[in-house]
């Protein structure tokens, strides 16, 4: 068996472009999943029943079904009834909403973990219900959620690879494209495995630094 990484080097622009897409998708899906997750958690905990009940159902459905299936439904399912969303947007939405459900669950747990004394102290100063949440409860819940959110984001970065099935030209699909030209699957798959690993290492390191910076605020 002989390895030859020359085809990988020759086609590195394709992999770099794929990496760019992967990061772009991960970034926007992360923003969607974090902001949306917090909104969903706050609504299910403190909102009116007509809003919170459907959202609970949403979390339950998205956590209970595979991401791959959700993407198929969004892309091909909706396409069948005439709702055509571009693959890239579908990918960001699908991934974002899927992880929104997971993040909402984390936020719900950390929001509930904040001691009631915090609310009492804020209310006794004259802060209203919403102000108390905004200035005191939500920031503390976010600090506490960070380690778990970080884990989720690392898993999500890897899950961007699933978007190759709906034709988003991220790392895996781009690698597959070059494999079909060069017939070098082993080398290309190892190369993108290394890229994923480096991306996650960078993400993990920056998350650790960020957490360290916030130490003592929880």
């Amino acid at each position: 068996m002989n390895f030859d990484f020359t085809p990988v080097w020759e086609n590195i622009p394709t992999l770099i472009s794929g990496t760019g897409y992967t990061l772009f998708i991960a970034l926007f899906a992360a923003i969607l999943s974090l902001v949306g997750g917090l909104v969903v958690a706050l609504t299910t905990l403190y909102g009116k029943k007509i809003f919170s009940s459907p959202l609970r159902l949403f979390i339950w459905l998205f956590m209970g079904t595979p991401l791959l299936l959700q993407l198929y439904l969004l892309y091909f399912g909706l396409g069948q009834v005439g709702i055509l969303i571009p693959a890239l947007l579908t990918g960001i939405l699908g991934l974002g909403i899927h992880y929104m459900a997971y993040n909402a669950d984390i936020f719900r747990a950390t929001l509930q973990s904040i001691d009631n004394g915090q609310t009492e102290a804020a209310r006794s100063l004259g802060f209203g219900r919403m102000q108390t949440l905004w200035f005191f409860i939500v920031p503390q819940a976010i600090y506490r959620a960070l380690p778990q959110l970080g884990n989720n984001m690392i898993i999500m970065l890897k899950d961007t690879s699933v978007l190759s099935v709906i034709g988003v030209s991220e790392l895996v699909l781009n690698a597959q494209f070059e494999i079909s030209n060069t017939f070098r699957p082993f080398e290309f798959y190892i190369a993108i495995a290394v890229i994923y690993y480096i991306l996650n290492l960078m993400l993990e390191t920056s998350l650790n630094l960020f957490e360290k910076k916030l130490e003592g605020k929880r």
Partner: protein
Amino acid sequence: MMEDQPRSDTNKNSGLMLDIINVKKSFGELEVLKGIDLQVQRGQIVSIIGSSGSGKSTLLRSINHLETIDSGEIWLDGMRVNQPDMKGLAFERHINSVRQNMGMVFQQFNLFPHLTTLDNVRLAPIKIKGMAKPEATEYCMELLEKVGLADKADTFPAHLSGGQKQRVAIARALAMQPKVMLFDEATSALDPELVEEVNQVMKQLAHEHMTMLIVTHEMNFANEVSDHVLFMDQGVVCEQGPPSQLFTNPKEERTKSFLKKHLEQQ
């Protein structure tokens, strides 16, 4: 939106600050307040003593509406605190404005751990009173100075001792320029050697004629600082009077046995 006139009224007995009329409160089957009456005059310092479960903390928390009373009336300087007929947003607005006039100090401090000492103190004046940030900073630094913690302004609560935390909590409550300060066992969670520094701050407030309602386990402190002492037992005010009378010459049997038990412990 700051009030310009000096808030603290040095003239004692110039008016009723707190008026509590026949307040009742139950937790399920258990009636913890069985019709409490209490008047606190402007500048007066009233201590409430009693064993755990006597209802003294519940009474204090009811005044701040952290507990909703079942019946009775609570008045703060002519404002009705509990408004049984008000609902929803109207009551929310009402209670927020009432609470700005009461400073509450908790047994567990309840400082905001994600904010520095200074931000703990100055956030409420800025966000609620609309004070300008430089003005609020200057004012709150004075308060921190007063409780002896100006050098800890940029420290997070996690790095403070219990006594320091409670002094910050007092400064935080004072920052809203309350008409009355409510202390809910402010020193009960502290190590014995840290109690004194908090008591000193409270004594200083007493000296400045702040109206204070103090729930405490410390008989010596209550004796020293109060104008009036209430002994609560099983949801009723069992006995009340000036500390000199209540501590040295109690009339009720229950007061006697409570004081005896407590003096043995100390």
